[in-house]
């Protein structure tokens, strides 16, 4: 079988699974069940397994819209963006964006941000462990190097700014079934950091300046630039923000050092 033929068969098989395309069935032999029926079993299994995985990751979304509605969203997502990795906990990165533009969700404008929150909690659970450093790691630098330092933050960290009260929505929907509380959307939005703390996913709400500070650091800006961005966003206490970073295990080192170390590990000497 030539390379081109194999690629075509694989492509047909993928299309059969994702879109119900029938070309692949013609290549399969009947064996007890007709080929098309056997392919359908495979297809059902694919959608069922991936939907279950998405349901676990986006548990709050599922609780909000119900299993059937969720399964419909999942079906649209799976066909549009099938997994690129065998690890199902990584699956779902584009789900919030699909919700944001899906007509069936138009009456639920907060739903995409709830999905982003769920995915951030999922990342907080599953991101690799990196040992945190304390502020004494920064204290070794002279003042100029400190202002120019680019800090590396824990890979479990997500920053999320929403117009909706995500924490209240999350909390209300993680109570026992039947005991969900009502949420007033007009209570206003919030800025959240979501990360892993002592082995548990955790979040806290941040003041605008603290959020801007973390966002700037996460975008790769140096400490001086991040402090300026924070000051421009509201009252800012740099000392308190630094102790937050270190006290919550957010700070893991310096970006340059991390880049250098990973290039050594990867044998990438450039």
């Amino acid at each position, binding site marked *: 079988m030539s390379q081109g033929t194999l690629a075509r068969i694989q492509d047909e098989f993928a299309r059969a699974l994702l879109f*119900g395309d029938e070309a692949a069935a013609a290549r399969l032999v009947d064996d007890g069940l007709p080929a098309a029926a056997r392919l359908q*079993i495979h297809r*059902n*299994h694919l*959608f*069922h*397994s991936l939907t279950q*995985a998405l349901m*676990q990751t986006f*548990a709050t979304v599922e*609780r*909000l*819209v*119900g*299993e*059937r*509605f*969720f399964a*419909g969203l999942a079906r649209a997502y799976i066909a549009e963006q099938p997994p690129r990795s*065998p*690890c*199902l*906990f990584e699956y779902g990165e584009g789900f919030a964006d699909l919700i944001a533009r899906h007509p069936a969700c138009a*009456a*639920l*404008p907060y739903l995409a941000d709830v999905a982003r929150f769920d995915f951030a909690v*999922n990342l*907080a*659970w*599953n991101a690799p462990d990196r040992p945190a450093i304390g*502020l*004494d790691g920064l204290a070794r630098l002279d*003042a100029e190097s*400190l*202002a120019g330092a680019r800090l590396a933050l824990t890979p479990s960290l997500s920053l999320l700014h929403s*117009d*909706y009260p995500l*924490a209240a929505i999350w909390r*209300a*929907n*993680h109570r026992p079934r039947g005991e969900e509380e*009502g*949420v007033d*959307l*007009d*209570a206003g939005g919030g800025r959240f950091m979501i990360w892993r703390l002592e082995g*548990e*996913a955790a979040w*806290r709400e941040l003041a605008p300046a603290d959020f801007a500070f973390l966002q700037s650091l996460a975008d790769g800006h140096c400490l*001086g630039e991040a*402090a300026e961005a924070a000051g421009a966003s509201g009252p800012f206490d*740099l*000392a*308190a923000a*630094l*102790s*937050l970073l*270190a*006290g*919550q295990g957010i700070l893991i080192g310096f970006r340059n050092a991390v880049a250098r170390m990973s290039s050594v590990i990867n044998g990438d000497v450039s």
Partner: protein
Amino acid sequence: MKTNAVMIASALAAALALAGTASAQEAKTEKCYGIVKAGKNDCQTATSSCAGTAKRDGQKDAWLAVPAGTCAKIVGASLTPGK
């Protein structure tokens, strides 16, 4: 006000001095319980390779009707179209 290197260094010094008292802030942190962590760390198969057969593929559009979960409990003016 320009943030300069000296200000950052003195903020760090202040933060180091604060280190012992920082735990008071942690009260605002919330931890997420009740999340299913297991079962997604590899290619998941449902209980058998035919587990999916029970789920028939006949509901492609029917779901579009109405969400049936707790979203009825989310209320507010932000829900009105055009937000």
